[in-house]
């Protein structure tokens, strides 16, 4: 099936984007990444220490997976812009998963700072993939600002609560001219399949795999779920009915 995910100037076969956070160690992470079939994976930027290596980048390079630096932990547009510029310097990529969060308890995006940072980074030549609220209006604003995709949350980061407002996701998909990537809140395979059935172009998840009891197995499940959801979306599901409709002939 030739149905690539196209973001900006890149084309991916896999519609599952993963994160690297939360894995017990690099070998667990590597097995999960391979099982997921992902081709694009987030990394964070943190202070280096004298003994610290860049092990995660070596793993990604070995597997042929593109790194997608994020601005996790940033609270203001200024912080996020600086982090993105540092990431571009460290990793040699102008792609960024833009995260500007409002507080530590909810980790919800701060829409005002997010939009501000997105505009600055687009002007600076970045391919901006913003992690956003499931707000159809904000999603449009981010697209108008020049973002290469919009990435609404299903529910707050790390909660595994799935997609709390499927209708909002459908609204975002219905009006978007850029790929919509469901980011955050995925708990299990059915959540990922639902995101794709709602019309998302891809799913981004981390915790659901890395903190699963068996990350490799869950990564395999997510890979299948995204494919199943995409197929179901394009297959044209039957309308929902109130009363039964026999599927066998009457006599």
């Amino acid at each position: 099936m030739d149905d690539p995910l196209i973001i900006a100037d890149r084309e991916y076969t896999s519609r599952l984007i993963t994160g690297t956070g939360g894995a017990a160690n690099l070998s667990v992470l590597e097995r999960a990444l391979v099982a997921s079939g992902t081709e694009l994976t987030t990394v964070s930027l943190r202070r280096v220490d004298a003994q610290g290596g860049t092990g995660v980048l070596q793993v990604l390079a070995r597997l042929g997976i593109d790194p997608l630096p994020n601005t996790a932990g940033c609270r203001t547009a200024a912080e996020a812009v600086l982090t993105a510029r540092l990431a571009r310097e460290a990793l040699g990529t102008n792609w960024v998963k833009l995260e500007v969060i409002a507080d530590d308890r909810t980790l919800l995006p701060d829409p005002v700072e997010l939009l501000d940072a997105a505009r600055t980074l687009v002007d600076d030549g970045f391919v901006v993939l913003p992690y956003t609220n499931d707000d159809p209006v904000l999603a449009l604003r981010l697209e108008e600002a020049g973002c290469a995709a919009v990435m609404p949350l299903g529910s707050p980061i790390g909660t595994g609560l799935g997609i709390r407002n499927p209708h909002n996701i459908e609204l975002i998909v219905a009006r978007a001219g850029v790929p919509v990537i469901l980011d955050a809140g995925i708990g299990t395979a059915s959540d990922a399949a639902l995101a794709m059935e709602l019309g998302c172009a891809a799913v981004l998840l981390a915790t659901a795999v890395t903190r699963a009891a068996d990350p490799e197995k869950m990564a395999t499940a997510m890979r299948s779920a995204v494919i199943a959801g995409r197929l179901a979306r394009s297959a044209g599901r039957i309308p929902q009915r109130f009363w039964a409709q026999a599927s066998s002939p009457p006599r």
Partner: protein
Amino acid sequence: MRITVNGDIRDVADGATVADVLTVLGLPTTGIAVALDGEVVPRAAHVATPVSAGAVLEVLTAVQGG
């Protein structure tokens, strides 16, 4: 002179450049990015960029996350 590197106070020679600081402190020179007083210093400029007393240097790299 004293500067701050990743939150720690460090003593480095007067006239040291960004590249000197990375070497002296045993920090990697590839796969990293440096901000000097809140501005990115491109890799190609590490050798030519002097650090002044009281400067705040952040040296970052990619780690697992997101």
